[in-house]
């Protein structure tokens, strides 16, 4: 078990013409469940392959605890490089990579056998993990005879039976159907907590990240946009990208102008609350982007102050309603938790003034602390 430290790591696939990862810095604590989150193609897998030792970064250092694994300084040859087979990591690849010549049982035992673990120990662990992932009845089949979801669970099991320093999981639940995904997600989180092994989990699914992570690293185009606990990122997004990436449905963004003590959104006016006055002082007469999450609205009882909206459509969620409304020309969504959906076409919404997010429209960075 080990903490992971990445210092100024850059990766290029074309000898420095362009960088897929640019000066990445990262600290992952021992035993932490860290999620690399970001849209497809942002460099999550690349970062993970560097940690595994399957890729050589052009620059930077990677440490496991106080042992240096990779150290490169732009030269052809790395200063230090521990090959992947000596790093004691377990990994699930996005493309499963099950050994076609081996049964599921042999696949799962393979790494432990390579390490010459005693046979009873191997059998015990494989049986336990097969049960946790409900693949016991598949143990004597070959990968070609499994469905996508089954292969994915086998790949996961093959990593989890080991006792590595670090788990590296690259979109390990991507091919499971929704119900199974929830179940395996729960099992995985439980197993990780039990074993207490440092884990890096790659996903583009914000729900997975929010539910499992101790530490989210949100990436975009090779840069870390923000990192922290799921609540940090959700409650205090550092910029509009982070705000938009976390939370479903997406946060509503209103371009506004600061006019004295009032935020003017064109179709509505909001009084700036005391707590935001200080940070908006510099924006007098300028534009800001106002972000309000769909769950941070409530219906104003019988008129009252707020944003006047026209109801477009209503989506029942079972325990709540998503109500799509028009504010001027803009379509906005809010989450209504009442028993029955409101019948009126014209509503007044009151945003939760404590949970407003303000962003600079040019830099897209957060204004309020």
């Amino acid at each position: 078990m080990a903490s992971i430290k990445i210092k100024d790591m850059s990766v290029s696939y074309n000898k420095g013409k362009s960088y897929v990862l640019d000066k990445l810095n990262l600290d992952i604590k021992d035993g932490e469940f860290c999620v690399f989150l970001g849209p497809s193609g942002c460099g999550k897998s690349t970062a993970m392959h560097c940690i595994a030792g399957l890729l050589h970064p052009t620059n930077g250092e990677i440490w496991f605890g106080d042992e240096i694994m990779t150290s490169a300084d732009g030269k052809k040859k790395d200063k230090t490089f521990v090959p992947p087979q000596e790093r004691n990591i377990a990994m699930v690849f996005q493309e499963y990579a099950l050994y076609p010549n081996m049964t599921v049982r042999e696949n799962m035992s393979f790494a432990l056998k390579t390490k010459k673990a005693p046979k009873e120990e191997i059998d015990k662990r494989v049986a336990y993990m097969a049960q946790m992932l409900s693949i016991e009845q598949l143990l004597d089949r070959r990968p070609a005879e499994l469905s996508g979801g089954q292969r994915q669970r086998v790949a996961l099991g093959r990593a989890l039976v080991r006792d590595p320093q670090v788990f590296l999981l690259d979109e390990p639940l991507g091919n499971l159907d929704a119900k199974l995904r929830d179940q395996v997600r729960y099992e995985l989180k439980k197993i990780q907590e039990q074993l207490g092994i440092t884990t890096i989990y790659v996903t583009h699914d914000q729900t997975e990240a929010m539910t499992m992570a101790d530490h989210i690293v949100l990436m975009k185009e090779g840069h870390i946009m923000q990192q922290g606990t799921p609540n940090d990122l959700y409650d205090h997004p550092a910029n509009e990208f982070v705000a938009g990436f976390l939370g479903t449905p997406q946060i509503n963004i209103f371009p506004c102008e600061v006019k004295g003590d009032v935020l003017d959104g064109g179709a509505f006016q909001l009084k700036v609350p005391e707590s935001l006055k200080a940070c908006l002082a510099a924006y007098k007469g300028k534009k800001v982007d106002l972000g309000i999450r769909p769950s941070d609205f409530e219906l104003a009882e019988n008129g009252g102050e707020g944003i006047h909206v026209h109801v477009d459509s209503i989506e029942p969620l079972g325990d709540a309603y998503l109500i799509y409304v028009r504010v001027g020309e803009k379509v906005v969504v809010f989450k209504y938790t009442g028993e029955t959906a409101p019948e009126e076409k014209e509503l007044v919404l009151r945003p939760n003034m404590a949970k407003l997010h303000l962003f600079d429209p040019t830099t897209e960075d957060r204004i309020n602390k």
Partner: protein
Amino acid sequence: MQGNISSIERSKAGQQAQTVRVKPKWHMTALHVVYYAILIALLVFYMLPFWGTVMTSFKTNSEVMTSTPITPPTAWTLEGYASAMEELGLPLLTSLMVTLFGAAGSVFLGSICAYALSKWKFRLNNVFFIALVAATYLPFQAILIPLLQTINALDLYDNIWGLVLVHTVFGMPMCTVMMRGYYADVPDALVRQAMIDGNGMWQIYRKIVVPNTKIATITVFVFQCTSIWNEMLFALVLGGYDSKPATIALNELAGTMAAEFNVQMAGSLILALPVLVLYIFMGKYLISGQMSGAVTAS
């Protein structure tokens, strides 16, 4: 019930759709007749010598003199085969040894080279590969004299192991080129996964690459066997009297025994038989197009 009926009906409709035949236009039919006539003519043309060989091999020497080669023998006899075996017995054994060891040697070396070339990046990787491809086009006549001198210097002239060595070395480039293609089909993800699972380069070769390309290996081995079995040039130059492969012995059979055609034909068939059998049983795999399915993973 409702569901049952409709599903049966649907399957009937499906069958009908499958069995509807398009009636070909008359000129298409005529063309087909012409095509088949040409094919049959070619078949006869190619098979006639073989037919003649088989028929002659079962005749007595006197009947060979009095009949045309393609008429079946009046009295079937194995005389020709018996005489041929007297001359070919030992050379066949030599051929078998040279073929098996030579093919095994070149496949083994070729496999290792192919693994390194297809799965590991190193400097001059491509240069090595191009050199090997070039080696497969090397005309053997050009190097025959120096080769003979080398074999002499190694004291391997007229020695089975000399032939084995030469076939191993000269078969290796072809084996490498063929196997590199098959190994490239083994997904790199498997190699990476095996590394993560704690295996070094040679463990990966042994535990992952070789077991997943068994059919490819057998294919290359069979290919190599047939080319060594049929080979004459090295056999003639490097095999003297004691280690004379069957191809040479067959040639001598033709040269020494004046016009005993039944014996010569019997000898030819004996020599051709192993290759024929191999192709009949392995033909499926030897068509390279079939290979892709055999090694793909995931």
